[in-house]
């Protein structure tokens, strides 16, 4: 059998797209940054970068959720409203604990822990529907939008969640390192400042937290058995079953993980905006899915990575911020992102096989 050789045919166009296919997202991101730096004064600055990072946590968490689900061959449409649901649940719980006379920080910690336990329930239900009852992911998770949205609205009862402890906002608007020259240095939590004080902030907390998750879960997806099985299920579910992988249990875990990330996003929302909102994540669902696809994942499953998704996220974030600084209305961002998405899908289709080659 010594003379079996690779039989993949390469013509010029395919070769071009395969070269482009592997790298276009990162190239596009650089071009985007260069373009906005030229046409939008103040874009390429520490302040400009901070604004992008401050706006990043929701899309980062929701796209991280979608990365796992999409690679496993599914889709989770409920991430946005699970995020809203969790923001409402955590805000209500924290306010309730404070009302019971519990210390602010303890209320927040207990509130988060309970919210995380509740927040993975939609994922458990999605997972059981998809894996055990064979409901298509699109339908199962679409139903979950209605359920989580409805419950959130009932919990809020049309009013507004007030009286969250101020420390929540100081975490959500703090930075990894906060320096008031000559006075204090604090980590994660923004310091109280007097009028006239200068505040130096390095890396917003709302970016640092998702970034820690990204580092950890990029490792999980790439280097562990859990990650490998996720790819295998997305690539060929029959092969996974015959190889002895417990596909049903694995898929349930994937959907729970997705809800877990959405829940953390909801909690981040509470810190950032010091309230909970039923539709807190409604805007971010599409961005989350689009970031994964622009990053080069296949909606058929089996292809993608956390780092590629991160690039997809930043293509959207940079576009959003760049256009905003130019004073362009938000609708244009939607149009541009739509066009990029079509471009991404076309590249994926025009470079069969080769794009999927591992180096």
């Amino acid at each position, binding site marked *: *059998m010594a*003379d079996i050789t*690779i039989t993949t045919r390469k013509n010029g166009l395919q070769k071009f797209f395969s070269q482009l296919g592997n790298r276009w997202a990162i190239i596009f991101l650089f071009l985007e940054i260069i373009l906005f730096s030229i046409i939008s004064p103040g874009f390429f600055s520490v302040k400009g970068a901070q604004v992008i990072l401050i706006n990043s946590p929701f899309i980062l968490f929701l796209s991280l959720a979608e990365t796992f689900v999409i690679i496993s061959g599914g889709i989770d449409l409920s991430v946005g409203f699970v995020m809203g649901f969790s923001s409402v649940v955590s805000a209500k719980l924290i306010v309730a604990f404070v009302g019971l006379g519990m210390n602010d920080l303890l209320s927040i910690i207990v509130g988060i822990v309970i919210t995380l336990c509740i927040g993975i329930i939609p994922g458990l239900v999605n997972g059981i529907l998809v894996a055990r009852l064979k409901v298509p992911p699109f339908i199962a998770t679409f139903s979950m939008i209605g359920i989580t949205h409805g419950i959130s609205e009932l919990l809020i009862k049309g009013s507004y969640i007030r009286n969250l402890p101020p420390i929540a906002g100081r975490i959500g608007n703090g930075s990894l390192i906060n320096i008031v020259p000559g006075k204090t240095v604090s980590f994660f939590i923004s310091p109280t400042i007097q009028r006239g004080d200068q505040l130096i902030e390095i890396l917003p907390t709302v970016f640092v937290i998702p970034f820690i998750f990204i580092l950890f879960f990029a490792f999980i997806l790439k280097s562990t058995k859990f990650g*490998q099985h996720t790819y295998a299920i997305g690539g060929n579910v029959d*092969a996974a079953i015959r*190889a002895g992988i417990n596909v049903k249990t694995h898929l349930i875990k994937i959907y729970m993980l997705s809800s877990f990330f959405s829940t953390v996003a909801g909690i981040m929302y509470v810190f950032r905006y010091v309230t909970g909102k039923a539709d807190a994540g409604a805007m971010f669902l599409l961005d989350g899915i689009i970031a994964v696809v622009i990053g080069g994942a296949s909606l058929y499953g089996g292809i993608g990575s956390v780092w590629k998704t991160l690039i997809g996220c930043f293509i959207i974030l940079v576009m959003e911020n760049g256009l905003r600084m130019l004073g362009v209305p938000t609708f244009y961002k939607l149009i541009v992102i739509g066009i990029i998405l079509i471009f991404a899908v076309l590249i994926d289709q025009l470079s069969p096989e080769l794009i*999927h*080659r591992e180096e």
Partner: protein
Amino acid sequence: MEYLIEVKNLTKRFGGLVAVDNVSMGVKEGEVVGLLGDNGAGKSTLIKMISGVYKPDGGKIFFEGKEVKIDSPIKALSIAIETLYQDLALAENLNVYSNIFLGREKLRKVLKFINVLDNNYMHDESKKVLKRLEIEVPSLRNRISTLSGGQRQAVAISRSIYWNAKLLIMDEPTAALGVTEQKKVLGLIRLLRSQGIGIIVISHQLYDVFSVSDRLVILRRGEKVAERNVKETNPDEVVSLIVGAEKVAQRSD
């Protein structure tokens, strides 16, 4: 010589239909048995009982002289019966060695408590088994989607061999391949036979079956109608046995 696997009076019914009726056959170590029959003759049902997909309604299975109950595919794998299905069951998005180790990944510990995939080990071990089977694939880090049909077949075979298959069941191993690749796969089957592995081949390609098999078992409508030594028969006789043109059926235990 004793049989590696022997099935006695195996029967499988689906409602009123008797898919496999009282079939007995055996395979020795280092022997290739061709399983022949028209569509619906019961070939697939028979091998699915051996590979643990179906439970027999009657009859016994002996493996290495001992009676075994093969009630799940995992059980079949655990006693070293590997089955290669026509669709190969490879994850095309994963590379060669990941497929060979799929579901049985080798892990190593980092920082003493985190289990990570031991890619180097899996790569090197896969390379060894491919070498043993004289299979060449450009790089084991290439995804399956970049390989040809013959290479994929070879990877699927290596996976079975790496996990020490004693009995290999192959369902239409040459069906989707070009002529050159068919020849290579047949060569691989001969190589496996020379290494002492028992093989059952299902195929519609009479030429292929004749060129690699030692014995032929012919099924018709769920019954075993004949068993022939390849050297003592010819394609014409076998075809008439398959379609039932001649009354030559004889039961042999």
